[in-house]
């Protein structure tokens, strides 16, 4: 018993059209796989879960600010408070000189947040997933565009859905068997 159905399309416009058709037919648990980000597909998927715009940038901002703050605080702690040594007649706490490191650390950790964030939200860092190994699916990273409808979709019914997909001009349709 398959838990999803996958349909392959020629190009992104066909896929986008298919998505609209299927949504019109009441399918909601739609997901697309494509070799490059296509704006049409994005638009078509709006409304079908999960399709909220990414909030990762906020995370980056948060981390960046946090790191910058910590960096400045650390410099003050080490140079201005714990070991207030005088060099070149400068006061131990010398904000002007603390700026570069503060900035660099902010950027560094914001970037960490961004990178780790995308791995996390994209559920990456995995050896394989449910769709890998589906016959012909390797074309998803090459030149073909795939539509996925989960069995969890209330409107899902293997035969009818297959039929609907055929109508949308899918090149091929696969029901990956879930391993025993």
């Amino acid at each position: 018993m398959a838990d999803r159905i996958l349909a392959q399309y020629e190009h992104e416009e066909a896929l986008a059209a298919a998505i609209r058709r299927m949504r019109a037919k009441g399918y909601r648990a739609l997901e697309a796989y494509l070799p490059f980000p296509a704006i049409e597909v994005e638009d078509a998927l709006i409304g079908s879960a999960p399709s909220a715009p990414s909030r990762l940038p906020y995370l980056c901002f948060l981390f960046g600010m946090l790191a910058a703050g910590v960096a400045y605080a650390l410099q003050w702690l080490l140079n201005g408070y714990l070991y207030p040594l005088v060099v070149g007649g400068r006061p131990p706490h010398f904000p002007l000189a603390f700026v570069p490191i503060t900035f660099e650390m902010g950027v560094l950790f914001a970037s960490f947040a961004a990178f780790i964030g995308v791995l996390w939200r994209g559920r990456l860092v995995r050896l394989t997933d449910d769709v890998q190994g589906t016959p012909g699916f390797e074309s998803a990273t090459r030149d073909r565009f795939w539509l996925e409808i989960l069995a969890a979709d209330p409107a899902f019914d293997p035969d009818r859905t297959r039929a609907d997909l055929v109508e949308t001009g899918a090149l091929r349709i696969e029901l990956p068997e879930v391993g025993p």
Partner: protein
Amino acid sequence: MNRSDRSLPLAAVDPDPEFPPGVDQPPAELDRRRMIQLLAAGAALAGLGPIAGCMKKPSDRIMPRVDQRPELTPGVALDYATATVMDGYATGVLVTTHEARPTKVEGNPDHPASLGATSVFDQASVLQLYDPDRATGALDRGTPAELATLVRQIAGRERIEGLWFLLHPQSSPLIEDAIARIRARHPGARFAFDTPVSRRAVFEGSRLVFGRPLEPQYRFDRTDAIVALDADFLAAMPNAVRWSRDFAARRRIAAPQADMSRLYVAEPHPTPTGSLADHALAVRGSELRAIAAALLAAVEGRAIERALPAASAGAEGEGARRWIAAAARDLRTRRGLVVVGDRQPREVHALGHLINQAIGAVGSTVVFTRPAVIEPLGDDLAALAAALAAGRVQTLVIAEANPLYTAPPDLGVAVHLPRVPERIYADLAENETSRACHWFLPLAHAMESWGDARGYDGTVTFIQPLIQPLHAGITLLELLSAFAGDPEPDGHRAVRARYAPGTGDEATAAWQAALQRGLVTGSAFALEVAAVRLGDAERATLAAPPGDPAPGPMGQMRGQIELVFEPSPAVYDGRFSAIPWLQELPKPFDKLTWGNAARMSRATAAQLGVGDHDVVRIVAGGGAVTVPVLILPGHVDRCVSLELGYGRWAAGPVGDGVGSNVYSLRTSDRPWFAPAAGIAATGERHRLAITQEHQRQHGRQIALEATLDEYRRDPDFTRERWQSEPTMLAPQFESFFHWGMTIDTTICSGCNACVIACQAENNVPTVGADQVRRNREMHWLRIDLYREGGDDDPRFIHQPMLCQHCANAPCEYVCPTYATQHSPDGLNEMIYNRCIGTRFCSNNCPYKVRRFNWFDFTEDTARTRQLQYNPNVTVRSRGVMEKCTYCVQRIRAADIAARKQRRDIRPGEVVTACQQVCPTGAIQFGRLDHDRTLNVQWRGEHRHYAVLNQLGTRPSTVYLAKIWNPSSDLPVRLDEDTGATEGGAQDPAKPPGAER
């Protein structure tokens, strides 16, 4: 030799009542083995560095009780009064010892020849003690022999026929006795006293005028007008250290309205004395006689033209005439004095005496005593050479002298000496001559010996041992005593017997007191009445222009190039060749290290078609040498000056093959000035190791100067260099007392004593010629030389440059690891352990006083030389930066002592090494709240300034501008040069190669 006796430290040195010197304890026996243990312990302690400075109790591991000497407390340094002797003249010194290791030489304030200061050679003598290439035992025809056996053999002999001694000039009363006893035991024994820097001419001169050899005792502190005829009395004469202090007393000007002495110098090449001269006249050495004769004529009111031959007409002659006229006027009208240099022949000395007589100087600014050295009483080298040639010498005993290296070839010593049936040699180390002798007897170093010697004024000075002999060694006194028949000569017994014959407690106490002072008070010679015994005929011949071919007239040298020889300011006559400190000492005017050069004026170089570093071949006196050229502004034209003491071939690894041996150009009749038979470029180049290649200020106002008149007209002429720059930074550590240094460039003669003192005090390594060529010398204190005016009549300003300890130090804020930072008492501190060696601090130091350990220089230092290290100063490892610390170890030691006694540091309690050694006293140091110290008073003078003050670094080291006192007859024009171009033309002292 029995070394059981104990030498005595100054009672004063131990600041801490907890540790009485304990001079009343019986001495402990020390054999060689234990001494080595002590030394090892010392070395270990040196590793502990500053910790040693505050150790309370001796630790067993480091200092076994059994070996402990009563007055010796680990970590507490002791100063012993002893003496260093150069060619017979003793300088009283205090030697600092750590755990029985001599580490540092300081002057003995009570000694008339020192007054607390020393020369570079005195400073370096401690490293000579630890020379790894010193002889370790006696040799009989090259095979090791037992020293005591040889000595007994010597003592056993009587009436040796044809016995000759060749010694350096001696002043020791004990040696005088020994010589007398030898003469009694071996009738017909002859003593020749010789040194390449002989002062016989001085005594001959006085013999000529006064009928007997006399030693002039100058009174520079009472003299207002000094005329020095080829006389470098501030650096190169026996009593120079003392005379520097006296000279400075009348030269240093405390306020614009105060008065200062005027100095005229006539010399072939710049010397420290010449660099302080208000009017320096560059003349060939052989011309001094004519100058002196003319000066005599002038002061006697006669016309000088008769004395100055027509040959010297023209600009040069004109300049000389005006110089003589002005000098004569000053000599007559002010308290004058004429000083004649040791290089000059007896006639010039005689003329000098006549001039002093004429101006009434004799008795006021110069008095006479009998000579301290017994040189005049003995034969000279020529007599010995004659005896050698005649085969009259059966047994030749040579001590310290090195004739096969230094003797003029025309004497044929090298030829005849090997024919002497029996040749005995004694010195610290083997050398050129010792190799040609049958017996070699190792001499003990002065710091291992008991003995005595006379200071320049005759003061009897004690020599006491500070350490057990590192190797078997016999003192010269003991050797002579052996010849006098003493089978077991003992220096201590001799000294004690002569100066403290009594045995009672009183006698002992007196003896110990004398030892602690280091001299016999009131033993200076009585003044001699010097009446001129000179017939008019002789006077006339003296005053008349000497005709050809007698050496000297200006005419003779025209077209021909004259060679002038000079004892090296670094290695003297070559006897210090094995001391790396001295080899690497930048010489005052060319800043040349590791070698000598043919120094000449730019015009002469052009005439010869050579430039810096070009190797020329010089032929003279039957010899020929190849030596690189170095152009020296202020050098007289048609003249080449050469430094003695280089080109040795048996001086050990350090001294061998450094520079060129110019002794082979000397002749016995003209030892100092001789016409060159030929000078020609060889086409080769040899890059000399020079530490300062640019001497122009490029109008940057780095070393300031003014004439006395200008100073009086505008006392604040240095304002641009002390008015503080506006800053956004609030001063730090306001509430603390800060340390500071003040240096008076008016009385700095550039004698280099401070450079070596700093090196000795702070364990500064030497790096060798190649590293110096790469600008990697390590001196913490260097003397920058700046030159104003033209190449032919330059004015020199010596500017000792060391860490300025800036309040806003550029080096500090660029260090990423806090390895250099500021202390509350105003020191710019260098923490070696924190240093990772980015060298950013050095790049950002505008004074370039920081030094970097490019390699592990300390590791490369010979183990025995490491024994000299000051345990209170960390030795630096590879890859760390280092620099002057204001002798922080001395500051902290005083701090600790003061805190123990619950008091504040006293004014003058902390003395830096450079300040302590400075002969003229040009360096002052102290805490800036000690108002009554010279340091603080000097800083208040109008002419003070801070170098590169415009950068806002706020240095703690302050300089006093150099004030000239030119005669109104010969005004000096202080033109500001703006040599704002690259290229050799503007910087004669710079090798052309440097700009590629």
